């Protein structure tokens, strides 16, 4: 049963940046897009066991810090080798000044 989890305040993430968010033994990445909206994906790259939190956000792409693989963090789609497997994404909403992520 999915739950909306309080992840952070909107001001905790700069525009075009991301933070790491750990919850219930799983790790995630929460993004602040250039459109002002927030997005969430799994935290680890689908290529190797590397966290995306040290990566670079360019518009709607997150570039992995290890081999420069890229994903569209809105859809999780793998966009640049060496990543081939899409990232899982999670719904996000902002409510009462908090960023909430719907996690399983």
């Amino acid at each position, binding site marked *: 049963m999915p739950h909306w989890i309080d992840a952070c305040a909107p001001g905790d993430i700069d525009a075009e940046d991301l933070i790491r968010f750990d919850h219930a033994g799983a790790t995630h990445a929460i993004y602040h897009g250039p459109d002002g909206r927030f997005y969430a994906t799994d935290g680890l790259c689908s290529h190797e066991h590397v966290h995306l939190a040290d990566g670079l956000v360019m518009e709607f792409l997150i*570039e992995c810090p*290890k081999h*420069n693989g890229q994903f569209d963090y809105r859809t999780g789609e793998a966009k640049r080798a060496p990543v081939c497997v899409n990232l899982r994404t999670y719904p996000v909403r902002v409510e009462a000044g908090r960023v909430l992520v719907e996690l399983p």
Partner: protein
Amino acid sequence: MGKRDYSPFGADAQRAVDRGLTAAEWYHTEVPRKVMKDLMTRTDQPAIRDTLILYGVMIACAGIGIALWPSWASLPFWLAYGVLYGSASDSRWHECGHGTAFRTPWMNDVVYQIASFMIMRNPATWRWSHARHHSETYFVGRDPEIAVMRPPDLARVMLNFFGIIDVMKFFPNLIRNALDGPTAEERTFVPESEWGKVRKVARIHLGIYAATLTLALWTHSILPLMVIGLPRMYGAWHHVMTGLLQHGGLADNVIDHRLNSRTVLMNPVSRFIYWNMNYHVEHHMFPMVPYHALPRLHETIKGDLPAPNRSILEGFREMWPAFRRQLAYEDYFIRRDLPASAKPYREDFHQFVPGMMAQASNAAE
């Protein structure tokens, strides 16, 4: 450690996996997020400028070389063209393969394809080999890009200054790739979804070489080969010279790039040809930082790194004797001192590697 087995199917490759080396986390210098974001920023401008200069000078040199052919007066132009073709293509292949040189993806892709052709690397295969080189830098049996294996084969190294070994390996491999896709060894790091691409691009490269050779035979002149193919040999020396310094004589099977990579300060011409890859520790620690920001990254983290070599010559003076010592004692490597401001080397993992343990305790004595 004794005799190293560099086969991807060998005992050392298996040992690296079994001991958890391949899953270990590499050491990184702490850099504040804001500073790192600034260093990682992508822009097209420096790479467009450098690419226009590179291809402009190449076209001019080849044009003059052809015009003066077969006079000896054409020689300096061929030498310059050769280095840009047979050496600058290595760094362009590298930077555009990472996708960091340009901000615009198609620009990275176009230069990557051209550079891969010139440096005689299958662009589909080598993208993956280089990813492995970054994950498992100088892990014996796992890293497909180890330039000098131990004990060093110095005759091979010397021949490669003229691209002889690389080219002799390249053409049989190209034919195999064109017929069957990646070899069994390449299949250990190229995912199956890419095998078709490996075959396709091999056929294109083979077609270009066949056309060039046909033209040379038809015109009874090696001139077409002076423009395409041969410069990978007569211009290879610079990329071999700089490439050897990247990891030569340093540790293997470690998870701290300060122990297995070397930063060398170089003259501006070599840095243009090499696209700042002389900042090699920095590049391995933070592959997201584009080449044009590496000097700034170096300034930011140098307090945590061994002092760089101050010239190519100084780098060779450090590296070459290490190669010679490795002829007698394979486990020997250079362990550079860290400045007082640096975090100590990570020895925790290295104690599982017998060569490292001996070396670390020697250093402590």
